[in-house]
């Protein structure tokens, strides 16, 4: 299998230490929480990403993140990688995150690029959900 060492490490760490790697859920009804869920079981991957934010100046900052992912090892590693990138970022900074950053960080092979696209879409959706609540 064309997995990079980085994907394997990320996947195993997340699996063995889910709390430290932000696996879990926030109450989706919480006004400070934005939820994004993308993918479909029939396609083999579903990512659910939740951000908890608070206002800072004239923007909002991501204070904490939780996620759950159904999918291949690369999909799980991609979500976990994204989560790490998000904490402490403003919503503007988070929106600017591109899937290629995940591809590079995890050295994803071409056939796994869709995993990173899914991750990028999940943060978009989570931010939209959060902003709609404000």
């Amino acid at each position: 299998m064309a997995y990079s060492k980085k994907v394997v490490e990320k996947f195993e760490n997340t699996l063995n230490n889910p709390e430290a790697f932000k696996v879990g859920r926030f109450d989706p009804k919480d006004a400070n929480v934005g939820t994004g869920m993308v993918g479909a079981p029939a396609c083999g991957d579903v990512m659910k990403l939740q951000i908890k934010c608070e206002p800072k100046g004239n923007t909002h900052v991501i204070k904490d993140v939780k996620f759950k992912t159904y999918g291949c090892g690369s999909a799980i590693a991609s979500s976990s990688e994204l989560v790490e990138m998000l904490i402490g970022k403003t919503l503007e900074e988070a929106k600017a995150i591109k899937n290629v950053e995940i591809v590079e960080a995890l050295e994803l092979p071409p056939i796994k690029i869709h995993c990173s696209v899914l991750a990028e879409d999940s943060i978009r959706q989570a931010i939209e959900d959060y902003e709609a609540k404000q």
Partner: protein
Amino acid sequence: MSTQSTIYLDYASTTPVDPRVASKMMEFLTPEGEFGNPASRSHRFGWKADEAVEEARSHVANLVNCDPREVVWTSGATEADNLAIKGVARFYKSKGNHIITSKIEHKAVLDPCRQLEREGFEVTYLDPDDKGVISPEAVKSAIKDSTVLVSIMHINNELGTLNDISKIGDVTRDKGIFFHVDAAQSTGKVNIDLEKMSVDLMSFSAHKTYGPKGVGALYVRRKPRVRLEALIHGGGHERGMRSGTLATHQIVGMGEAFRLASKEMEEDHKKISKYHEKFLDKVKEIDHVYINGDLNNKVPNILNVSFNFVEGESLIMGLKDIAVSSGSACTSASLEPSYVLRALGRKDELAHSSIRFSFGRFTSDDDVNNTLDILGNVVQRLRELSPLWEMHLDGIDLDTVEWNAH
């Protein structure tokens, strides 16, 4: 991670060469050994190699109860499938252009059929029932006046389910249609009696039965006679059906592996059935587990299981010290789940969640026990990571969710 510490439960993909087979093969390679060209008629080297090849041929014939003259050496089951399907279709094309096969065949059968479609043949791909079985009735009702060949596998490589090739053979013989069977998964697992069955062509592989990779054979019936157009032309070896210098050591390996299979089939079967039983009992203790295939009609060396709410490839990655196969082909560019499971009508998510465990001659109690210890734990951890499991626990019916598919 050394492969030595990894538990091997992927025997349906390939088996190690039995050490007894490997040592026999060694006798046909070096200057001290019988390295001659079996086609050399003018000296002892050739005669000795030829003798060894013919002995191996009789071992293969003996395992499946046919005449040794009906065995044609090939490079493997893929070549045997190609030779049977393309060879017969092209030879008899003036008689008809319709071929019947099934949706759960190995690619080595499906791809030659696709190629024949490009050449103007018409192919019917039969659906299996929900257990993965192709019924003789389904074959019968697909037959037309133009049908020349039926190709149905004996044991499905992903599920382990068995097709009743004896009954299908009765249907095709009755209609005067050639019947090819891909039996790559069968040798050493179930009894095959070609004298009793109306099968015209049958493909075999060495490396699924503790022989070496790179060699296989095609059974080509003599009475009633089956003729075929060769794929490889050259020195006219194998009565013109497959030219090329015979790979003596490979062939000797296949012969020895098949000889051992006739001798030890019962013993292997007993041991593997015990593991299958134990595995099944333990796996069933995990919630939301589905066995794919037909438990009442399958070989015990293959067990295909779907762990709902967990994706197969991630499960394989989680089971890092265990070598198994996934029905999900997420590793290929297609991102398609197993076409075999889909053909059974399994929902895509269950097809994505399937793992094939396959046991063999060298599987040990420890292999099975250790795998079972790890398996339940990894499934549980992955479910804790799975949004689908969370939704399921929340009482949400996943079929009613509108997914944001990619």
